[in-house]
């Protein structure tokens, strides 16, 4: 007589107990997408955990370069960032980055904001490259292939993949479905798509089924790890 299969107690559960555990395997030399715009939606607590973890020689992708002293700024200040890819390094308080940049200790790749977003989206969507009219005729398209498409000059841009994405969302369930709050959504959904491993800090973890399926912004397939941070830190 065959015994009934054991009832599995282990279900899909992407929630990780601690920030430090969630970032433990990020290696030296990793390329990391970091969400946030102007301090809103930036996963400071995950960045601080990465700072404690010690990985170095990192390439960071963010819209800016961080303000103040904690999170991204702490990583940059400690000399742990080799290169930053961003659109707007002139943040309200870029002192930490500016010092490294002027000393030639950090590489800067400046990308128009929409091209940055589309390169991230393209990485997540499996698009090999794309042509865009943005930056044609400017220093930021120098050396890049230009084609006339639809009667208009367009510049070839490539996807921006990452090994890890660090993202802040508002609510998650144990599958990793996400909702965001207001303008804190910004780069979150596309960065979740574009990284091999996506780590998300959320204000609240709710029961599976509690998120309205019509309101889920990032479906769970794009999320690998969820950490509950009820009271996230702020840049300033």
């Amino acid at each position, binding site marked *: 007589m065959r015994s009934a299969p054991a009832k599995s107690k282990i279900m899909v559960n992407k929630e990780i107990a601690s920030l430090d555990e969630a970032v433990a395997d990020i290696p030296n030399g990793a390329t990391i997408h970091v969400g946030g*715009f*102007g*301090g*809103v*939606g930036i996963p400071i607590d995950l960045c601080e955990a990465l700072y404690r973890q010690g990985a170095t020689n990192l390439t960071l992708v963010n*819209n800016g370069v961080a303000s103040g002293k904690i999170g991204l700024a702490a990583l940059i200040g400690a000399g742990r960032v080799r290169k930053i890819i961003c*659109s*707007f*390094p*002139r943040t*309200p308080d*870029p002192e930490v*980055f*500016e010092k490294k*940049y002027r000393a030639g200790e950090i590489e*800067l790749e*400046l*990308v*128009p*904001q*929409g*091209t*940055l*977003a*589309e390169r*991230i*989206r393209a990485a997540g969507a499996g698009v090999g490259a794309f042509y*865009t*009219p*943005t*930056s*044609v*005729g*400017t*220093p*930021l398209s120098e050396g890049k292939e230009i084609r006339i498409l639809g009667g208009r000059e367009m510049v070839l841009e490539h996807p921006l993949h990452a090994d890890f994405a660090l993202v802040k969302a508002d609510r998650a369930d144990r599958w990793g479905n996400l909702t*965001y*709050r*207001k*303008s*804190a*959504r*910004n*780069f*979150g*959904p*596309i960065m979740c798509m574009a990284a091999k491993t996506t780590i998300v800090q959320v204000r609240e973890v709710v029961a599976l089924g509690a998120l309205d399926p019509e309101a889920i*912004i990032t479906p769970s397939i794009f999320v690998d790890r969820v950490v509950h941070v009820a009271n996230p830190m*702020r840049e300033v």
Partner: protein
Amino acid sequence: MPEKLTRRQIAWRIVQDIEEGNYVNLGIGQPELVADLMPANREVIIHSENGILGLGPKPTPEEADEDLINAGKKMATLVPGGAFFHHADSFAMIRGGHIDVAVLGAFQVAENGDLANWTTGGGDLLPAVGGAMDLAAGAKKVFAMMDHNAKDGAPKIVKRCSYPLTGQRCVTTVYTEIAVIDIRPEGCIVREKFADMPLEALQARTGAQLTLANDWRPLAIPDVG
């Protein structure tokens, strides 16, 4: 009679050229004044590149929400009907030609509509571009809101930009403290200037050839401070 408009008056003038129902993006800095001068009874939908349509006025202390900021990283509000979306969608709106008007600051505008507004190429400021190149490439109309001349008196409307470009042939109208100038294939057409300022005087402060429109009008001085 004052011989120049204040920045609020320039913003008011720009509001007169924005149509009901337009989707409008306002650049960081001076262009943000356009929202302040928009009458409450007008339905103009403000796009903010960080992922907002229907950007509202500054919040009261009670309304302030740290997760709701505008592209200039200032606290903001959302009007009824407003929406949030992610960055790729936000720039699809811009690049895809869905934004009716972008109001941008400018270092220089050339007679062919070239725009320079992101760097002077010098090392004094960190290079930063943000969404300016996307707006220049994608908005249906680009209004340049700027001083007519640089601090040293140099013209900012020029034959060819000497600063690195933001976009090519994109500016449709320039609004300054002394004139409204359309950039058309046939050149720089003065649509409005002060009645008592001869075209020659305006021309002397401008680096590109000006033509007075046949139907030019005197620049109004609105009572908006």
